[in-house]
């Protein structure tokens, strides 16, 4: 175990933001946290990163380094008037590390950034800023990375590339990663565990396999004139032209694909679609 947050409570005045929240994470795990806006995800991550003090509960990092966790909250926050190298040097300096040129190049290279860019980071794309923010988060070798909405502002290619990068950090470098996002298909691709936060309370927490089985029952099927598919209609799908939405259990999938194959329906993509409302209602019962 690298990280454990136990029985976290936090209120702002009479508003209870977090109620008895517990999450833990092992080395190499990516623990995803999903929830509607205002569910308390950002407050929880700020508590884990020591930015906000909980009313009660404990946060423990079972690692020996000076820096327990690095992170990004909502969007990268960098000194826009400084270059990428200078940002790294400043944030390293804050924690008492005097980065040498070679170390700066290594840190930039680790996140796929070139050392040739000498201009202020305000000129950088969102993806580049995200990568630089990760490089800063990884300074001083934390064993845990906490990323709140790291995909926001990225285009689909950027999301895929950044997701791959997060996966590498967990799998190759053994970091424990806590991640929140509204992009469910990316979360289901990356995470090993998934928790759902609703009104400040964890209403679901399980491995990604079990979570996917219980949570992901709606899928969007894309293909040329897919709405003309009789098979999909028979299974109860609804939609228009090139997109059909279908509620289906994972066990019924082979039967559906067999039928679609026989019908010679071309499916170009199938995207899991989490119905949070339905999920919250069912989990709250």
């Amino acid at each position, binding site marked *: 175990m690298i990280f454990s947050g136990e029985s976290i409570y936090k209120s702002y005045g009479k508003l209870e933001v977090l109620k008895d929240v517990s999450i833990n994470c092992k080395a190499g795990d990516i623990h995803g946290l999903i929830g509607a806006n205002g569910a308390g995800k950002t407050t929880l991550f*700020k508590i884990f*990163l*020591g*930015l*906000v*003090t909980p009313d009660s509960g404990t946060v423990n990092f079972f690692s020996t380094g*000076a*820096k*327990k*966790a*690095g*992170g990004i*909250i909502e*969007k*990268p*926050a*960098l*000194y*826009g*008037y*400084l270059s990428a190298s*200078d940002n790294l040097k*400043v*944030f390293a*300096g*804050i*924690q*008492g590390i*005097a980065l040498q040129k070679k170390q700066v190049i290594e840190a930039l290279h680790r996140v796929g950034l070139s050392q040739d860019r000498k201009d202020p980071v305000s000129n950088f794309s969102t993806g580049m800023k995200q990568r630089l*923010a990760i490089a*800063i*988060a990884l*300074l*001083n070798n934390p064993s845990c990375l906490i990323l709140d909405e790291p995909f926001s502002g990225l285009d689909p290619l950027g999301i895929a590339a950044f997701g791959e990068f997060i996966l590498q950090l967990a799998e190759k470098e053994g970091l424990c990663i806590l991640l929140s996002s509204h992009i469910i298909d990316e979360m289901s691709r990356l995470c090993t565990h998934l928790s759902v936060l609703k009104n400040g309370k964890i209403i679901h927490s399980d491995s990604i396999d079990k979570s996917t089985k219980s949570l992901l029952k709606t899928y969007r099927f894309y293909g040329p004139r897919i709405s003309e598919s009789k098979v999909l209609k028979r299974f109860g799908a609804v939609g228009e032209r090139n997109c059909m939405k279908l509620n289906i259990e994972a066990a019924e999938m082979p039967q559906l694909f067999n039928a679609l194959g026989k019908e010679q329906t071309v499916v170009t993509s199938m995207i899991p679609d989490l119905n949070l409302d339905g999920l919250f209602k069912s989990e709250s019962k």
Partner: protein
Amino acid sequence: MIALIKMEGFRLLRQSRTYYALAGVLLIEAVVLLSAYYQGNEIIDILLSQLRESFYFEGTLVNGNLITYLILNSMWFHLPLILMIVVSGLLTSEYKDRTLLTAMMQPVRKVRYLLSKYLVGILFSVIIVLLLSATSLGFSYAIFGRGDLVVLLDGLNFYEQPNAFLRIVLAFAAGTFSMVFYSVTSLTLAVIFKDVTKTWIVSVLFIVISNLLMKIDFGSGFLNNVFYFKLNQSWQFFFYPDIPWSQIILKTSLIVLYTTLMTLLGLFLFKTKDID
């Protein structure tokens, strides 16, 4: 701590706002220099109108020393204002750009981080006053030449060039403590208000109210000696024939005490507040 101060100083020097502030100080100084020249002629005419009937004056009394003295008189609003804007910006800009979040995610103690900002703010204030004193003396001497300084404080006082220069330098040194107090206060206001505009408005209010209260005589010797806004005038003591050193030391010590208390208040509030 030294590393934190270095990083803070590095960021301050890399921000264009710092250089705008420096340019602002020099621009205001140039305007004050110009107005002081005309004001100086008028003041000298009024002061010496009666004396001219009995004495013959050789040379000009509107010289570099008098102009610098007038600059000293007029620096109590614009210099604190510029200092408060720049120094409060050390923190408000971090709140605005959210870089404080990133900084506080690093293994650094909140108190040490803010203390480094206070120290850099103090250093910046000292440098600005040094710059102002050097340039105002330099420009004034270069343009208006040297000569005796005439000052109206409990009667007319004349000081010869070397003595006048020393008194002006000491007055700038005493004024530095007041400027540091304003800078430290602005940083504490930044801790409280976080927002750039709110902090600026409150800082301006603070200067205006301080200047208004400075001019009120409270009658009570205790209030006149202890309240911070009364302490900012201690630089004037250097232009009395007999410099009241005990008064200067007492008032300067009190400003240092107020500055320390203001710093401690800021550190306490910052430590107890969440980083949102």
